[in-house]
């Protein structure tokens, strides 16, 4: 639901009950110790990622507590290189004997891989030298305990249920809190540690529709800071309004029409677009944008950037997954594709330099990833995008209909039919389709309402024409 956070890769929730807080210094000690062990075991080079997180999740449904989940989780990921052969391994066993054996086994495992000169660690001069404080830690988050989480969930859900008697059921209200630390150490010449907090709250009411169908809707709030969360009651009310608006949803006739994407729906399209601007996809010849740098790949209204350095940003990071300094990268400006994002490997494969865009999880090696991916807002008030004689406003997209290799795009959609500049009635069970290249080139308006709740951020935007399949 929320976007990329520090603990996106560490599975699951965790324990406040008498449990230590994740400590970046301790993570860093483990990382550096592991690095020494790996080199001692015979690795020519190694890099270590340690993550430690606590998570709390509480859920209330129809006024009753449904779930209290609390736990702490810690894991270590290692990449070793010996004679140009690489192995990627992970463990949750932090005992001294366990770590030593893990180092030896990882180095042995690398012998199975084949020599890959391009897979070497980054050059020393590429590494980050400082670790910027991006203001990702909020002490106040720690004081939100089980009781307070449950209280917020009760208030939010009750507000939704009270708004209108047509709100007949609920999939509940969920409060979530994660607190995490991570450290990265590499023999290429970098060691750093960071910590972060994240809180989220969502309410999902359900209405009974006339035809026996049920209609569900959701509204949520998320922030790295406790003070950044919307009021639970306001979230509940907005969730109920969104759900009520879907009552009476129907199909519409098949045909072409202009389509307005809400930030909630547009976010997934922005993520898919950035996915085909990955250097990993480029060297794998797995993007329809291969060979298109410097050319128009979207409407001149489109500006797309990846910015890891936003203070308090959901996807912010001080350094990338290989220890290179984070930097802001412009992918598209004036509709022109300016660059593909690269980690060190993709850059070597393509004869370029890394853009500092490596993502790294405990369970896998570095790969090209995004931090805060932003389709820049325009100046048009979002409401004006709906000034159409006829068109579709899309609130939800579903399914797996994007093929980044060929650029074919088709997804299930729901939203509202627009007539005479007004939302005339709710729409469901239709698909929207176009070639992805056409979709982005046909953007004819970009709203001013950037939604910053998640790490993929966009405003409302409009595509002049797509195919709708319905009745």
């Amino acid at each position, binding site marked *: 639901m929320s976007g990329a956070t520090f603990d996106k890769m560490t599975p*699951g*929730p*965790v*324990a406040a*009950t008498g449990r230590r807080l994740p400590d970046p210094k301790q993570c860093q000690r483990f990382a550096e110790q592991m690095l020494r062990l790996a080199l001692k075991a015979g690795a020519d080079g190694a890099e270590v990622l340690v993550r430690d997180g606590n998570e709390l999740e509480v859920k209330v449904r129809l006024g*009753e507590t*449904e*779930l*209290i*989940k*609390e*736990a*702490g*989780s810690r*894991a270590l990921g290692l990449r070793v290189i010996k004679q140009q052969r*690489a192995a990627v*391994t992970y463990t*949750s*066993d932090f*005992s001294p004997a*366990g770590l030593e054996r*893990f180092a030896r*086994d*990882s180095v042995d*495992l690398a012998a*199975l*891989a*084949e020599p890959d000169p391009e*897979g070497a660690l980054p050059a020393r001069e590429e590494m980050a030298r400082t670790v910027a404080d991006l203001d990702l830690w909020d002490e106040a988050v720690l004081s939100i305990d089980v009781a307070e989480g449950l209280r917020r969930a009760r208030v939010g859900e009750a507000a939704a249920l009270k708004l209108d008697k047509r709100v007949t059921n609920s999939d509940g209200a969920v409060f979530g809190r994660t607190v995490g630390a991570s450290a990265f150490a590499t023999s290429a010449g970098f060691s750093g540690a960071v910590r972060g907090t994240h809180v989220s709250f969502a309410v999902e009411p359900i209405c009974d*529709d006339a035809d026996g169908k*049920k*209609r*569900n809707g959701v509204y949520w709030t998320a922030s790295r800071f406790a003070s950044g969360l919307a009021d639970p009651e306001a979230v509940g009310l907005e969730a109920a309004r969104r759900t009520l608006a879907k009552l009476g949803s129907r*199909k519409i006739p*098949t045909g072409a029409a202009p389509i307005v994407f809400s930030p909630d729906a547009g976010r997934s399209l922005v993520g898919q677009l950035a996915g085909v601007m990955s250097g990993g996809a480029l060297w*794998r010849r*797995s993007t*329809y944008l291969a060979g298109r740098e410097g050319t128009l790949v979207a409407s001149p209204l489109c500006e797309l950037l990846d910015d890891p350095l936003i203070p308090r940003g959901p996807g912010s990071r001080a350094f990338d997954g290989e220890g290179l300094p984070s930097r802001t990268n412009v992918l598209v400006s004036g509709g022109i594709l300016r660059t593909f994002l690269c980690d060190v490997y993709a850059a070597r494969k393509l004869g370029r330099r890394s853009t500092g865009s490596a993502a790294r999880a405990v*369970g896998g*090696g570095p790969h090209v990833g995004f931090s805060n991916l932003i389709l820049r807002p325009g100046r048009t008030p979002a409401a004006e995008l709906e000034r159409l004689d006829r068109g579709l406003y899309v609130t939800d997209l*579903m*399914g*797996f*209909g994007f*093929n980044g*290799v*060929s650029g*074919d795009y*088709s997804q*299930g959609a*729901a939203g509202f039919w627009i007539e005479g500049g007004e939302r005339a009635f709710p729409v*469901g*069970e239709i*698909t929207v*389709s*176009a070639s992805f290249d056409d979709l982005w080139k046909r953007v004819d308006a970009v709203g001013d309402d950037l939604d910053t709740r998640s790490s993929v951020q966009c405003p409302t935007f409009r595509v002049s024409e797509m*195919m709708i*399949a*319905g*009745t």
Partner: protein
Amino acid sequence: MSASGGIPTAPPARVTQPAASPLDGIDAALAERLLSAALGSGGHYADLYFEHRAGADYVLEDGRVRTVGRGVTLGLGVRVLRGDATGYAYTEELAEDRMLAAARTAGQIASSGDAPGPIAVRPVPLADRYPVSEPSFARAGVDKIALLRRADVAARAADPRIVRVEASLAEELREVLVVTSDGHLARDSQPMIRFGVSAVAEEGGERQVGRSGGAGRFGMEIFARPGQSPEEHGREAARLAIGMLHAVEAPAGPMEVVLGAGESGILLHEAVGHGLEADFNRKKTSNYAGQMGQTVASPLCTVVDDGTIKNERGSINVDDEGNVGQRNVLIENGVLVGYMQDRLSARHFGIAPSGNGRRQSFRHEPLPRMTNTFLAPGTDDPEDIIKSVTRGVYAKRFSGGQVNISNGDFVFALTESYLIEDGKLTAPLKGTNLIGNGPEVLRKVTMLGGDFELSQGTWTCGKDGQSVPVGIGTPTMKIAEITVGGTKTR
């Protein structure tokens, strides 16, 4: 390791079989102490889920094994139920004090109540649904890499327009021990192997990808099964990529659709499977809630969820809350006869659990989940089904699907499909979607083939952020009308 001793150790990567499992040290007495602690605040039920998972993966890209990966996770999840409410906690440290702390944390869901009575656990006898003749972890890594190479060579040899091949093999051995406060103790060893090939084809400015793969609770013997050799997957990936080079725009709008045997089981999974999971019906958030005994599909349709199929990807000797895997009929000749139950929902409904309580890992609470879900065969000749269509779409392979439980709308993405014109398959179609409503579409099943197939088995199902492996299957079927999400109007 001793029952109260320190952190169990992961098997070293070199050792080919987890020789002594860390779970060996968990005895009934320790489990009983932990369950008593979990129920100390008044919960009515508790369970322990110990899990040791070893995984390895091998990837061949552009003819080279770039990296090899391996990992081990170990932990305990403790769940406490009080009424319909769940308390959950877990720990990766299996020292007794850490496990007791997790048990008490999970117990906080209950705030008052009687101390638990004596708990006595005994082993549940289990069938062996996944006999393995050649355990993959016992084989050297080089043998697995050789398989990747064979797939790579076969895909490249298939056509000069294949410009890139990637092949991967992943293996996993999951040892679980489930102990419940009502006395079940079940230990299971769950193997999984997955093989996949993707091939990129280029011609002119056009670029397409094809994928083929197989998976199941097998060892290396999977590669001797029909259609599962590395060469067959390599050639199939190449065939799909090449075939798509000349694909035409898919039509848009409602039309007759024929779904091929096997992979099309995704329709059942999305259109009815999720909607028949008991939690959604207990909460009345599913569009199938309150419809038990009613006609919800064409009388041709009998839908079964079966966790007992030998070596299938979704099969389970025991579910993740200590109940043995079962075969459950969900819809019989169009009539809704059963939901998939976990313990929590079964207690709510006052019936027995159906062996569908599954979880992604020790970090996750169990939920009612599918195992292998399929549509039983009919009697029509598959050829006749295609011949009966004047203009429509024939769909054979899919990349994924999604359903909205509440309103029943579902969508699934086609990666291999063809136009049907005058009863014959003609042009291949570009990637598109089918969208429909579960109960409405199942009422429109008008022909059902006798050619039942299970999918080759690479499916993973996601729900509430948890992924579990599942199987699907179906015979060839005809749907009188469903919306095809293409770009071309008639």
